[in-house]
């Protein structure tokens, strides 16, 4: 009975992997009791933790709705952040010009949804006359145009400086409650965002597992056949884009009600769009659960990698790593000043590690983390045993286990070193050491080329296998 209810809540689309379901339940529990967890465990920086949690909720919504487009319908749109901004600005403009009032707040959310549905309808009517790359370019142009349009309408939107609307939001969103005699939290605002996320997430699960979702998947697999069966594919595409736009606009309203500011740079920026795209790719295309896994990993990384590296940089580990170049038995002895290993652990290098993580994800989890977990569960493999196993594709190619491991490791190292070279090379431009600068440029070029070559070999190898 209870399991039946639970299954119908997630629309009978089970995680299909025990590790994945444990992760999801853990994330759900932590997000549901976050203020209490912070107080009980005595974490520092409660404001930052709450902001991270809200960002995770908002990006779960954004990534899940973007997954309906990119993973289920295979429509690659680059103007998803525009709908996010529409929701935020509709809340912002109404809150700026009115007294604190709950009705105005909820009406402004509804108005944001309707505006974004209209905009997405227009975009899809214009853009869907053409397909694929062309559509992507058109949506990119529309996104850039929307940003400059909002910056130009400074009378209503505050221009590039943005809007602040601390006073206009309803009072229950700013009410702070002290928990266990410790810090005070905006409980109502947090739980509003949390429950909206949960409800919309379940709605989207329902959507993709409904007959409508089946048609979307059919469009992804073979559009011509789907239209031959008798479905109006453009109609289904337009509806999918509208639904994704509406969800993104709700996410924007929620985020604006938490950070209480609407600036073009924090909503319209291409980096927001790329974050959504990366969350979907890292988490797993074509699974709504992928949005949760990807959002948790990437938002935590963006918020906490910088302070974590600061701790590492202030310990003596970077100096120890640099000592390799002073060891008399090392062939690298004497190159201490040329190769600045210790600089790699500076906290300003954190984008380097993020980039390495993305590349590693694309290499090792080509179907995303959720896809890989499901693959393991299907093969009844224990998690992380892949490091010691033969790759199925390469086994057919008669390449040995050890070579396969080296193969993977080599590509990994190639890309790592490429990124390292670029960053350290650029950084040491400001030094007097001209030799290192020239060397790093040459090395960057060579390593980058070998990375491309390696990628092509890999690609051709796989292609050959599928042909056989």
């Amino acid at each position, binding site marked *: 009975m209870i399991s039946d209810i639970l299954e119908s809540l997630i629309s009978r689309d089970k995680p299909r992997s025990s590790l994945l379901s444990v992760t999801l339940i853990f994330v759900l529990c932590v997000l549901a009791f976050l203020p209490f967890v912070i107080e009980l465990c005595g974490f520092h920086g409660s404001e930052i933790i709450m902001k991270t949690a809200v960002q995770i909720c908002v990006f779960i919504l954004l990534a899940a709705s973007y997954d309906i487009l990119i993973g289920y319908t295979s429509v690659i749109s680059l103007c998803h952040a525009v709908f996010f901004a529409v929701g935020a600005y509709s809340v912002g403009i109404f809150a700026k010009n009115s007294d604190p009032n709950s009705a105005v707040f909820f009406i402004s959310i509804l108005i944001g949804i309707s505006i974004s549905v209209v905009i997405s309808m227009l975009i899809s009517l214009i853009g869907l006359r*053409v397909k694929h790359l062309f559509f992507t370019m058109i949506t990119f142009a529309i996104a*850039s145009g929307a940003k400059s349009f909002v910056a*130009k309408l400074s009378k209503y939107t505050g221009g590039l400086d943005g809007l602040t609307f601390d006073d206009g939001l309803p009072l229950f969103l700013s009410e702070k409650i002290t928990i266990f005699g410790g810090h005070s939290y905006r409980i109502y605002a947090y739980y509003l965002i949390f429950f909206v996320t949960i409800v919309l997430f379940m709605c989207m699960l329902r959507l993709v597992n409904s007959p409508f979702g089946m048609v979307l998947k059919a469009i992804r697999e073979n559009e011509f056949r789907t239209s031959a069966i008798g479905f109006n594919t453009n109609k289904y595409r337009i509806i999918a884009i509208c639904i994704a736009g509406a969800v993104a606009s709700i996410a924007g309203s929620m985020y604006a009600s938490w950070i209480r500011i609407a600036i073009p740079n924090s909503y319209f920026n291409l980096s927001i769009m790329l974050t959504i795209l990366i969350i979907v790719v890292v988490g797993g295309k074509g699974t709504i659960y992928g949005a949760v896994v990807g959002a948790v990993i990437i938002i935590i990384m963006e918020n906490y990698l910088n302070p974590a590296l600061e701790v590492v940089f202030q310990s003596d580990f970077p100096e120890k790593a640099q000592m390799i170049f002073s060891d008399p038995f090392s062939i690298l002895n004497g190159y201490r000043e040329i190769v600045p290993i210790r600089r790699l652990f500076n906290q300003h290098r954190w984008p380097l590690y993020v980039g390495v993580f993305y590349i590693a994800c694309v290499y090792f989890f080509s179907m995303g983390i959720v896809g890989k977990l499901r693959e393991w569960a299907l093969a009844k493999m224990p998690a992380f045993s892949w490091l010691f196993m033969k790759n199925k594709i390469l086994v057919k190619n008669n390449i040995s286990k050890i070579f396969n491991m080296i193969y993977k490791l080599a590509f990994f190292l190639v890309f790592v070193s490429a990124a390292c070279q670029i960053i350290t090379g650029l950084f040491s431009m400001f030094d007097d050491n001209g030799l290192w600068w020239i060397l790093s440029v040459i090395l960057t070029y060579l390593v980058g080329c070998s990375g491309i070559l390696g990628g092509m070999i890999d690609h*051709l190898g796989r292609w050959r296998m599928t042909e056989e």
Partner: protein
Amino acid sequence: MSLHYIFFCFLLYFFVFVFVFVAANVLAAIGGSVYALNSGTLSTNVADDLLLVVIVSIIIGGVGSIKGCLVGAILVALTHNYMNGIFPPLSGAVSAVLLMIAILLWCPHGLNPVASIK
């Protein structure tokens, strides 16, 4: 399909790829120097808004057509510069996007469609 064949294929592929990329970048660099001669001032973010204009003029002209690029660039540059005098709120990047929308409603594959876009 021997290993040699694959190696040869990818060498060919690689060199064509490199050649096209290098040629495009050289042309872009020439464009940059002409732009610098004209504007007289330079900063690190000169090219920030340029990508939009480039993409819009390619789309207007039709992907895969050099003649179309010429027409598209002329149209985009004219609207970009003269919209400010006609209706200031729609000047700049917005005018380029509106022009693109107007032209795509008229002919969805651009003014001079060459490549069959799928």
